[in-house]
């Protein structure tokens, strides 16, 4: 517990834990800490037990720890549930009187939340603000940050509301300063100099990427953990003239984005594995008609409904092979919020260039985890359109939608822009887009859609991220959200040198590159939030290389830094 802390706020669903969480993220970032935060929610609206975990440090953070240094229990049940997952010397904040807790525990720090909330704000609702103050006090940041956080959180509300919340927070803060004897938790702030940087989660990054990429049509059906993508894009829809349409089901969603894309508009949908299961036929349609689409698959534990609000990486193989027939696709699996943003933009460009479905494979952990990030370098971005421009369209006659070319890519015209008409067909078709029964034509079209496009796509695969690989004793291998935990383990492992290779794009699989990277590695362990070791299997299929072992987790929870470290030690 040198230069970092893990903080947990826990209570029932409906107690507003997410709001406190967001306020705290802001507060600590502004105080100059790096933050990483994540929520653990049940699939219910009220009751049960939810918690928000927040790590703060003077170094950049990418993952969670198992145990918390400071736990704030907002209800009685939380005390028993979370007492055992504290670090040694950790502190559990509770309202003894309100919860009627009589037993003693070294870790307990009694704070009369309820009284303070009622006293300052007039109701128990203000407990959240009290606890913000309490946490700020324990960590010892300056009180001005508390005020600032309250101002930001309640911006736009009544003066009176803001003042009451500030009062509540200040009372909490002061209480700690007067009553907490220990200052073990006062870690040094100010590591980030420029605190004018964003905090966002994975889904936010996807939305920003999509907006920047020129997405103008978004259709989806709500499903955790993808739902907030629709909520956030809806928030900006008016400003950017984007149509966000809640579809009647996932089948409609994917067919709608295909329709809009055919008409010339960049389009996206997002869902979880179960919703994607319903989009599989549509995916195949996009491929056959050569209509670009972007599909976000935010994984959660399955089969079927599974754990709706939790995390997994068990749909890799599903997504790679989804859809009847054979066709080229791009599958991205970014590992960080920054990567999600840039890869989303790339996915739109690649989908349009190759006229294929591009899939962004993420998961609940990445979708819902918040981090302070560097402001995106927007200059890096280039939006290129791979359609026949409106200008050029005017000159087009005798248009063939599926004209054979070397690259397998046929120039794509937009209906009503060109003078000719466009035929698009889900049946096997001729270059003109008319239904055919011809064997030779069928063969050539398969080659176009599958071999040729694949070969182009393979030229622009996102490079694997390689980290601490020189003379590494152990090389971890992962995709998607495990980037963070692998990175922290790699940074902090002491016994042995641990490096890692992370794939932000899993298809086309960078086989030659991976073979080069791994063939001389001492010991390769795949780290996967699934039971099948799916990435390891893919590696073997594509390169012939077998990993030395797989560290698998399939209980719906993300890896923790300490947990992974232990598992790696065990695996050797």
């Amino acid at each position: 517990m040198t230069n970092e802390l893990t903080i947990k706020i826990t209570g029932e669903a409906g107690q507003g834990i997410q709001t406190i969480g967001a306020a705290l993220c802001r507060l600590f970032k502004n105080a100059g800490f790096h933050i990483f935060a994540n929520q653990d929610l049940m699939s219910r609206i009220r009751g049960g037990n939810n918690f928000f975990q927040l790590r703060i440090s003077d170094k950049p953070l990418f993952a969670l720890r198992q145990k918390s240094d400071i736990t704030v229990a907002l209800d009685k049940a939380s005390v028993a549930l979370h007492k055992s997952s504290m670090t040694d010397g950790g502190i559990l904040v509770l309202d003894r009187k309100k919860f009627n807790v009589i037993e003693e525990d070294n870790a307990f720090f009694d704070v009369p939340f309820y009284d303070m909330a009622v006293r300052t704000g007039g109701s128990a609702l203000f407990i959240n603000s009290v606890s913000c103050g309490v946490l700020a006090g324990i960590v010892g940041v300056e009180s001005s940050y508390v005020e600032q956080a309250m101002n930001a959180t309640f911006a736009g509300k009544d003066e009176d509301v803001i003042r009451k919340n500030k009062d509540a927070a200040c009372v909490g803060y002061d209480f700690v300063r007067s009553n907490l004897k220990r200052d073990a938790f006062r870690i040094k702030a100010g590591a980030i100099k420029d605190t004018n940087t964003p905090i966002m989660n994975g889904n936010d990054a996807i939305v920003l990427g999509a907006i920047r990429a020129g997405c103008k049509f978004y259709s989806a059906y709500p499903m955790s953990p993808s739902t907030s993508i629709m909520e956030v894009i809806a928030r900006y829809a008016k400003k950017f003239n984007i149509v966000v349409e809640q579809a009647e089901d996932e089948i409609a969603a994917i067919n709608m984005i295909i329709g809009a894309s055919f008409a010339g508009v960049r389009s996206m949908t997002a869902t979880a594995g179960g919703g994607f299961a319903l989009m599989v036929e549509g995916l195949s349609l996009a491929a056959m008609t050569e209509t670009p689409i972007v599909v976000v698959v935010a994984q959660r534990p399955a089969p079927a409904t599974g754990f709706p609000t939790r995390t997994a990486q068990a749909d890799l193989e599903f997504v790679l092979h989804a859809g009847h027939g054979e066709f080229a696709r791009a599958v991205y699996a970014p590992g960080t919020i920054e990567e999600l943003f840039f890869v989303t933009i790339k996915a739109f460009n690649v989908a349009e260039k190759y006229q294929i479905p591009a899939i962004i494979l993420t998961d609940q952990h990445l979708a819902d985890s918040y981090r302070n990030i560097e402001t995106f370098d927007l200059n890096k971005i280039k939006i290129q359109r791979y359609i026949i421009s409106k200008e050029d369209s005017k000159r087009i006659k005798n248009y063939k939608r599926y004209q054979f070319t070397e690259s397998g890519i046929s120039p794509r015209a937009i209906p009503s822009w060109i003078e000719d008409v466009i035929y698009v067909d889900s049946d096997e078709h001729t270059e003109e887009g008319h239904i055919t029964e011809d064997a030779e034509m069928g063969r050539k079209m398969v080659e176009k859609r599958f071999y040729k496009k694949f070969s182009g796509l393979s030229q622009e695969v996102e490079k694997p991220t390689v980290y601490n690989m020189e003379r590494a004793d152990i090389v971890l291998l992962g995709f998607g959200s495990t980037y963070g935990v692998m990175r922290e383990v790699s940074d902090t492992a002491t016994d042995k040198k641990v490096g890692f290779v992370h794939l932000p794009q899993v298809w086309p699989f960078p086989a030659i590159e991976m073979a080069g990277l791994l063939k001389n590695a001492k010991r390769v362990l795949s780290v996967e939030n699934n039971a099948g070791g799916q990435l390891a299997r893919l590696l073997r299929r594509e390169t012939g290389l077998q990993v030395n072992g797989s560290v698998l987790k399939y209980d719906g929870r993300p890896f923790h830094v300490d947990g992974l470290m232990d598992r790696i030690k065990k695996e050797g």
Partner: protein
Amino acid sequence: MDISDFKSNEEIAWCPGCGNFGILTAVKKTLSQLARHPKDILFVSGIGQASKLPHYVNCNCFNGLHGRTLPVASAAKIANRNLTVLVTTGDGDCYGEGGNHLIHNIRRNTDITVIVHDNQVYGLTKGQSSPTSDPGYVTKIQEEGVILEPLHPLEMAIALGAGFVARGYSLETEHLSWLIGEGIRHKGFSLIDVLQPCVSFNKKNTYEWYSKRVYKVNDNGSYDPENKMAAYEKSHEWGDRIPIGIIYRAEKETYEEKRGLSQGIPLVDEQIEDVDIKGILSEFV
């Protein structure tokens, strides 16, 4: 535009004598009177005999999946409101596999015109019952005859608040062409169920069978398609007499209007190269 502007060179794969030919004739006739360039007209279809129609006219064609015409059509219209969007679909395509999209796209009320080639049978897959098959109709699957209540598409559409609900008959091409034209002119979702004899598989609901029963709903000029209760009565009529014509009609605001898409530049014409996200990015700070 002239009818020849809509001529396609594709060989027609329908059976000789199929009721689809009448629909094709009617469609082309309507198109020729629309004063719209083929490039501004989009046909969306699914899979089935009906769904081959777009290949036989010279207009844009998106021939998608079985049952999935309506999401494609609505979204294409949303993306480019300047397109005149028509859907040609079958009774299996639209009422069977695609049933959920039908009910929700009626609610969505984009300005599209849906022509259902209703032969009361699955033609392309060789003669299974369809949602509109008459009770007792015998097929290889329904060996003892159809036992499900037929779907009543017109009645259902009225119940769902559709603003244009009509029935045509493929032998009455003039009337049908007029209906399709009215459907296109109607602002919002238009459903036109077309009685279409399938000479190969439906030996019950034949030309003769239909011709004997069909009558124009407003032949004597007294039918008021804006009277919903009358429309319910008429839409349920199926037996010795089967009404064709506009069964129900009501003005409704379209999706595009409600969304503010009927003004400004169409989505498809938006410049997207340089979308500026700096402003919203700062909201995350």
